[in-house]
């Protein structure tokens, strides 16, 4: 039986020339798990809003076609009626919290259902258990929860309503690896114990392959590919063209020209037929540590509150021409260390030298011309009304006449693919364009070091790869780029050097492959081992022992 049907759906936001959704035909049957993926800006979240009737009922624009959810026409039925049977979990766990503690948050969704007190208590506890949390979380404020816990509470709040359809819009994109794992295990128990119909918008191919029965790939407002997840990923270049990047094991299998059902199967094959895996474990040439030391940090300590150091005696040197990745669990001190590197925080103890001078000896203008800091949310650092003004902001601030900096602004716009958008208001740019603008606006001042905080959070893999190519080209020009990230895949693929932080200390510094081979470090820093590293370890084991799977 169809729970959800969309027929010939078309949607264009008022004021926009192009439609966001076009010719969408979709059917989801009861008990099915359907995943939707595609590049940022493909229309995935807009489709979610259309499925629950927010479009066209609440947002202005042109709508055509029909969406039937449990038999209701969502363009005509009251949204409160539709959402009685639908639970929605959005991408940002922070924003979804309306109330001030976990109990009130779950309760809020139950209020319109007019349940009695006993039923409410029972549902609150049941939903919390389902996502792996207990009653001790009920009085806790959202500020006291980690990203993974917040998202699990958001799922609990949606499931407490016992919906017939659960819609998850990128539930893991804002989370660190541990948070992701927490949400994934919540999803596992959700699927096993509460067999509901699920539509999940997701970028992570590993999650899609694990859970989804069917995968839809969207691009430019249309469903361009559809099928079983592994079938879609096997399409190779066709899928990649629409930012449907396959899981690591499929990518590696394709590279080796073999077939593998899942990661376990690939590892088994690695053990039984090591010859096929020749070349996977060849040591990579470390290209980093080329130039002079540009940042030197000596025994640096930092505390926001007395007696509670966040950074504990860190020693670090960054050299020109290095692409350095900084990883570690939430709260390990990555952002604090990156701000110390950029001179935005002053150490409680120890010293930070930039280009051989103490950070305190520079004026703000001088320092920002040497080190640029790019924030996780580009909206925090866009202060002007046009793209051109934004890129020129740093020069204007220094009182430089336009004729002297116009060329540099043009160069930055060209490098970051923003030509043609000069007169646009930054507010109306896409996520990826805003991100590029934020980098272009600091790049225009020609700094030697760029510190980039979580550049790929909430972005599709294609955009992540694009950003990494940009960083690589900057490094090739002799600049140093320090990237704070949770993405093990990108760090493994692009980093010259990996720093791992735990509890305010750097516990590992060196080649990404060598560090990620260390089980102890991976465990402590809540990272995951890339499939190539796992294969290499299996090959090494195979040489030493008999079948590890027996």
């Amino acid at each position, binding site marked *: 039986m169809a729970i959800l049907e969309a027929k010939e759906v078309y949607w264009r936001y008022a004021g926009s020339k192009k439609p966001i959704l076009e010719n969408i035909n979709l059917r989801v049957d009861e008990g099915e798990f359907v995943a939707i993926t595609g590049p940022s800006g493909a229309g995935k979240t807009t489709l979610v*809003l259309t499925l*629950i009737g*927010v479009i066209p009922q*609440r947002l202005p624009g042109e709508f055509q076609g029909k969406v039937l959810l449990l038999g209701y026409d969502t363009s005509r039925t009251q*949204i*409160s009626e539709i*959402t009685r049977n639908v639970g*929605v979990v*959005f991408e*940002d766990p922070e*924003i*979804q*919290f*309306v*109330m*001030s*503690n976990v*109990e*009130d948050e779950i*309760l*809020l*969704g*139950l*209020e*319109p259902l*007019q*349940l009695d*007190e006993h039923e*409410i*208590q029972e549902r609150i506890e049941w939903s919390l258990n389902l996502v792996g949390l207990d009653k001790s979380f009920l*009085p806790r*404020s959202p*500020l006291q929860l980690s990203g993974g816990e917040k998202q699990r509470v958001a799922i609990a*709040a*949606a499931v407490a309503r016992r919906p017939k359809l659960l819609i998850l819009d990128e539930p893991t994109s804002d989370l660190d690896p541990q948070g992701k794992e927490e949400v994934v295990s919540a999803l596992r128990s959700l699927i096993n114990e509460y067999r509901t119909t699920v539509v999940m918008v997701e970028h992570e191919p590993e999650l899609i392959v694990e859970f989804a029965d069917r995968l839809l790939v969207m691009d430019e407002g249309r469903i361009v590919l559809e099928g079983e997840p592994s079938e879609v990923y096997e399409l190779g270049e066709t899928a990649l063209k629409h930012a449907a990047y396959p899981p690591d094991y499929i990518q590696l299998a394709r590279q080796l020209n073999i077939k593998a059902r899942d990661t376990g199967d690939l590892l088994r094959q690695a053990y039984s037929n090591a010859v096929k895996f020749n070349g996977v474990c060849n040591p990579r040439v470390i290209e980093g540590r080329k130039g002079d030391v540009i940042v030197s940090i000596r025994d640096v300590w930092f505390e926001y509150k007395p007696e509670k150091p966040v950074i504990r005696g860190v020693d670090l040197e960054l050299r020109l021409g290095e692409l350095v990745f900084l990883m570690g669990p939430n709260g390990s001190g990555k952002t604090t260390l990156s701000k110390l590197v*950029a001179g*935005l925080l002053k150490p409680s103890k120890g010293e930070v030298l930039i280009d051989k001078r103490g950070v305190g000896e520079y*004026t*703000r*203008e001088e*320092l*920002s*011309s040497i080190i*640029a*800091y790019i*924030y996780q*949310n580009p*909206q*925090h*650092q*866009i*202060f*002007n*009304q046009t793209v051109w003004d934004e890129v020129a902001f*740093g020069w204007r*601030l220094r009182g430089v006449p336009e004729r002297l900096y116009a060329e540099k602004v043009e160069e930055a716009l060209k490098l970051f693919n923003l030509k043609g958008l000069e007169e646009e208001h930054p*507010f109306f740019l896409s996520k990826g364009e805003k991100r590029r603008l934020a980098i272009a*606006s*600091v790049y225009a*001042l020609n700094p030697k070091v760029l510190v980039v905080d979580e550049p790929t959070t909430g972005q599709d893999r294609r955009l992540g790869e694009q950003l990494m190519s940009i960083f690589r080209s900057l490094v090739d020009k002799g600049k140093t780029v320090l990237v704070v990230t949770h993405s093990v895949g990108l760090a493994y693929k692009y980093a010259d050097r990996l720093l791992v932080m735990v509890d305010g200390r750097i516990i590992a510094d060196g080649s990404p492959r060598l560090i990620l081979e260390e089980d102890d470090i991976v465990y402590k820093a809540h990272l995951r081992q890339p499939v190539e590293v796992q294969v290499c370890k299996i090959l090494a084991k195979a040489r030493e022992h008999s079948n590890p799977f027996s």
Partner: protein
Amino acid sequence: MPTILEELAGVYVRHTSYSELDAVTRIIVPFFLSLDVFFVKDITTATLLAVTALVFLLWAGVPLRFLKNYLFLILSLSFFIVLSFVFFKEVPGNTLYSTTILRVNAERGVWEWKILITDTALLQTAFFILRILAMIFTATLFIATVSDRDIVWGLRRLKLPAWVSISASLFFRGISFFVSDFLIVREAMIARGVDFEKSSLARKFRIYLNALIPLLSLMVTRSLEISLALESRGIQPSTTFSASLHRGKLTIKDYLVLAFTVFLTIFLAWWFTWRF
């Protein structure tokens, strides 16, 4: 639950028997104390009110070092009041000190600017300072002992429509979002070379105008996202709350505290009405 003071200023208030009072009591006590400020009319009642508010504050476990932070503000206000009484007002009473700063002889008479300190002027100054202290203590008592949740549930108990208590909750969430966004935007400006300490006032003003762009765009984005999150849970302006959780009963201690507060207000109102 963290109190408003803890959320906004990060000041932790230790747990005392005052924190065990029902949320309704913790809201009503400062409400009545603030009402009392209108009734005090002399130094006796102002002292009584300031001391009562201070006692509540100490009972509630508010760290005195927090008040110490505001000492500069309190001293500045007091100093301003003293100066205005001494320099700009000639309050009749027993003269304690008098001197003429300026004397102008004109056709229609003599105009003098005098410093005149009388016993009544000093009493009035003390009265104003005590009243300000009472107000500061009462406001601190409120934000240091009440959480946003207490207010939201208080509004729910009044059976107001859902949108009222949700708006109240969003208001508090909005403040913390705005404060943290503002700090990040300010830091992002510093990272681009803005030096707030060395900039002139006019330049600072222009820079803060620039800061409004990201702040407003973030507010718009967040408002949209929050309203979508509410819609997706079936919450609409017309929704009524049905849940009957957390309808705690007031204890003897609550009744005693409430009785004292109400009695104080009645007493001050009586004093205000019959003594003046």
